[in-house]
């Protein structure tokens, strides 16, 4: 069967081309430009769906742009994880289209740009392109955070920009060190050379820089200081996209770097430490937060910390746990933000919200139960995967991580259910609970319904995640896919069809 490799470029190229065209078209007809943007993202989503079918049937896709075989030229690589993230990004973009028809065409352009660059992050097969798309994503998100340019928004965007630029320069420095050590930027080629060239101090220094650099978007401690301000200030849709999806693109890049270029224990321990710090920082900061949106922002930091802990655990089990946590968070957090956008102000002021909008409060409780990890909701299985995967590698640091993860559940429940209790409280006399916009409620309910569907189909979903993780955690297979002739020694052992039971490393 002919593979659809040549389609890989479309989800990146179409939106970016459209982003350049839109201001021009807008000069002729503003509404045409806006529709062009949305149409392009829909088209990209269609392409992504076709790619997903192909990948599900016959394994990862590789495209060498311009006919230059890797490691020369630009390589695009898509496996199950990339395509899942790509679909999440484009579908999320459409659901949370952060520009309304009344807005200047500029914000539409930024959305389309975010989609194109985000697709690039999901699909790029070399470090340099990752960096370029990371920068474009960053620029688009600064613009989106700045929104209509109120004082608070501009301030948040500026501080976000400063932290983001700091991160980008660290990442660039890391990439430079990797290039200096290996002489290549192609991930597969780096993976091939990594054991001899990147195992030393230079390699580890490069890893540190890369993690801190890409960690800005992935909300890793200590470069996540922008999170609470940006999420509280930017529009809820932008916050949903950043916290829900862009952060996942970034953390998956970190995972790829760990799996491919730094498979040693030291790099994993470093990521583990950052993850533990993130969970502790996020959970405790969320405890006692004054507002709902603040609590949710800190909770996002801790969830990304959990993902980092999972990705720090070697083998398929770790990647599967991280992926499950990441996808769960991508589904849950945007729904939370949709509700929080309407429930602003101090938490105690939310009393009566349940009476005003029972559905919204019920959705909140459902989401909270899942994010806390109550069986049989998906959040439980994600955390369960994490704990079992971690316990299989019982080093003292990992045991600490398990203890932190389990304790974090209690802290998480403490603030989530403090809010839930407030929602169901009696409002002050002659005051009704806060109302909620119908569109926001519809989006939150849609995502909650998705969560319910995942709950019912959990076995199948977890199997799919496990299959994707098996592919993504296999370094040799990646090399063999991208560099068939060079990686010949690494036999094409793993593909989608392998019985995942034999792959399982959960004891």
């Amino acid at each position, binding site marked *: 069967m002919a593979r659809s490799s040549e389609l890989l470029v479309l989800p990146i190229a179409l939106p970016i081309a459209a982003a350049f065209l839109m201001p021009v078209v807008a000069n002729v007809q503003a509404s045409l430009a806006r529709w062009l943007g949305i149409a392009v993202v829909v088209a990209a989503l269609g392409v992504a769906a076709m790619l997903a079918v192909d990948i599900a049937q016959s394994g990862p896709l590789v495209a060498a742009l311009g006919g230059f075989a890797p490691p020369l030229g630009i390589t695009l690589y898509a496996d199950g994880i990339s395509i899942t993230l790509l679909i999440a990004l484009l579908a999320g973009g459409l659901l949370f289209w952060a520009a309304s028809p009344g807005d200047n065409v500029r914000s539409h352009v930024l959305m389309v740009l975010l989609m194109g660059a985000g697709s690039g992050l999901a699909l790029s097969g070399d470090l340099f392109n990752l960096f370029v798309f990371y920068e474009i994503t960053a620029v688009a998100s600064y613009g989106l955070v700045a929104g209509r340019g109120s004082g608070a928004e501009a301030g948040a965007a500026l501080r976000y920009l400063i932290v983001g630029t700091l991160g980008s320069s660290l990442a660039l420095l890391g990439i430079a060190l990797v290039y200096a050590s290996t002489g290549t930027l192609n991930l597969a080629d780096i993976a091939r050379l990594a054991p001899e060239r990147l195992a030393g*101090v230079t390699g580890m220094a490069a890893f540190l820089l890369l993690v801190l650099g890409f960690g800005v978007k992935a909300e890793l401690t200590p470069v996540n200081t922008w999170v609470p301000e940006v999420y509280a200030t930017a529009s809820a849709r932008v916050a949903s996209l950043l916290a829900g999806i862009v952060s996942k693109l970034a953390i998956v890049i970190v995972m790829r770097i760990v799996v491919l270029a730094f498979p040693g224990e030291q790099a994993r321990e*470093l990521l583990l430490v950052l993850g533990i710090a993130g969970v502790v920082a996020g959970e405790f900061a969320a405890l006692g937060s004054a507002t709902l949106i603040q609590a949710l922002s800190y909770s996002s930091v801790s969830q990304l910390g959990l993902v980092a802990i999972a990705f720090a655990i070697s083998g398929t089990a770790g990647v599967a746990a991280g992926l499950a946590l990441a996808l769960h968070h991508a589904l849950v957090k945007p729904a939370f933000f949709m509700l929080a956008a309407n429930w602003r102000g101090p938490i105690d002021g939310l009393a009566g919200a349940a009476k005003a909008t029972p559905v919204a409060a019920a959705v909140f409780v459902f989401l909270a139960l899942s994010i806390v990890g109550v069986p049989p909701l998906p959040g439980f299985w994600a955390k369960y995967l994490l704990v079992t995967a971690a316990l299989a590698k019982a080093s003292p640091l990992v045991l600490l991580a398990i203890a932190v993860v389990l304790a974090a559940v209690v802290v998480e429940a403490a603030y989530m259910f403090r809010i839930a209790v407030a929602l169901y409280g009696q409002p002050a006399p002659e005051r009704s609970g806060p109302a909620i916009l119908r569109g926001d409620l519809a989006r939150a309910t849609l995502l909650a319904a998705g969560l319910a569907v995942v709950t019912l189909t959990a076995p199948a979903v977890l199997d799919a995640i496990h299959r994707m993780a098996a592919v993504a955690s296999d370094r040799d297979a990646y090399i063999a896919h991208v560099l068939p002739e060079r990686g010949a020694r690494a036999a094409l052992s793993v593909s989608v069809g392998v019985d995942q039971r034999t792959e399982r490393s959960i004891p």
Partner: protein
Amino acid sequence: MSLLDILFLGALAVALAMALLGGTRPAGVIATLSYAALLAVLALMEPLLAQSNAAIASSVKFQIIGEEIGWSMNGLGWFFALITVAAALFASWFSSGQWGAVQYDMRRQHVLLAVNVFAMLVLLSSQDLLGLFIGWELVSWASFAMMTQRGGAAARAAYRYILYALAGAMAVLAAIVIIRAHAASFNFADARMAVAALPSATKWTVVALLTAGFGVKMGLLPFHLWQAPAYSETPGASSAFLNAISARMGLYALIVTLLQVIGTDVLTNLSVQFIWLDARDIIMWLAAVTMVVATFIALMQTDARLLLTWHGIGQGGYMLLGVLIASPLGTAGGLMHVMNYGIYQAALILSVASVMHRTGTSDLDRLGGLITRMPLSYVTMLMGIIGLAGLPPMNGFVSKWMIYKSLLEGREPLLLALAFVTTLGTILSVYKLIHNIFLGQLRQEHWEIREAPLSMTVPMLLLGAICFVTGAMPGLTLQLVDRAQAAIGVPLLAHHLGGVTLATGSLNMLWVVGTMLAMMGMGAVIFYLLGGRHRAVHQYDNYAGGHFLSADLRYHFSHEFYPGLARVIGPWYRGWIVRAEASLIRLSDIIGHAWRGSFDAGITPLYVMAALVAGLLWVRSAGGLP
């Protein structure tokens, strides 16, 4: 479709029916009849369980991440399920009439009761560790929903409960995952083999995590603070249900894990050097201390509901003691006490609920003399407190006697002494309860009070009657206990209708009760032979502290009920656990505040620099040099 499937579906159907019809008038009757039907299903299961001593499997099962989760109910689960459904039956009977009509949202109460029953049935049918955990969480959240419904203080108590419960659940999860890592399966039998082979440090960890985790729900010290307020703030009928059975889920899980998965032999082999205690002794001492402390806290309570719920925590200690002795007599006593306690505690809580229904308060300082106005509630409470205090002829006496006897035979004289001290405290406190509510002078504001309606008194009195019947004929209960004991794998205790026959001393309650009644009859005969002189006196014609009281001298002694005792034991109430809890909350607030302050974009470069320096130093020192 097995009987267990029918049971599950039935419980779900009740929840659904209550969601639809819960607000209507006959809802309580429908619920009561439905629970009776569930009870009938359980009764149909008994012969199957007795025949083969095997579990009845449900046809619901699913595969997830390579594990198969299924449910089946064995004799132990069946025994607890019986109490659960019966408690729900009496709770909804109680709320089927006037009591339910005046509730703020009776529909929600009905639905939540049914959901709780379902969750408990799921827990009680778990056949592997993962199923146990899932059921455990379901039960925790279902009871949270039940406790929080009234809002305000109830919501605060429920919130505290769910944090304790989740902390416990996480400890349990850690233990389960540790066992799973060694057993390669969640199956109880595989887990047992794996645990036996664990190094002793890991065994200790697993035992500690499980005891603490499941102990939270039992209110085992020092995790007991949540229980009394949470149960007390729940509306009467639901509170009776929670009191009767909810905390026992912790006992069930402890029996399953400590006795079935870990095994008493492993526990007794885990010894601590130099203090002659093993893991089992430590847990038994925890249970005994819980028993004493909770009972004396109960003694000091001034709210009837709190007094009873604190006793619930203490009574849990008896059950755990009996079960951990693990002799046929001990486990039978412990398990029997679960059922006996459920019966008399439900009666007591319902009786307090009907007093609250009429007077609007359960404050022991604001009641008194209600015996003339609510005689049926008084009779119920009298029967209940005799059971709670463990005196003949009520059922509580039998199970406590068996536990005492097993402690004696198990050579645990110190624990036995603690059990006696507890019983003393119980007797004192239940007297305070009944005196402050029903005896003494009637308060003026209660002059117009009437007895609770039949919809409330009939189930109450019925519970009291069961309390007496199973006290006089403990063989009825012991027959049910047999199923549970067989499932744990403890040899069955030989018993007959009147009690047990043992080489070291038997108990025949038929004789005990018969003798008691005969003595009373003889007393009456003598009294009447001597002329039977008596004079009816008015309730106000009374005396206190050596002084005669009358209608113009109103005095009901209830405030600071045991002043002398309080002076002696008062200083023991140092509340260090309460203070530890408060400190923990404050500490996490401070840490939270500090962390929130650390999220400052301006300091990020400093963080990055620190991270880079620390990271590079670590990279260098960790032997990364080429």
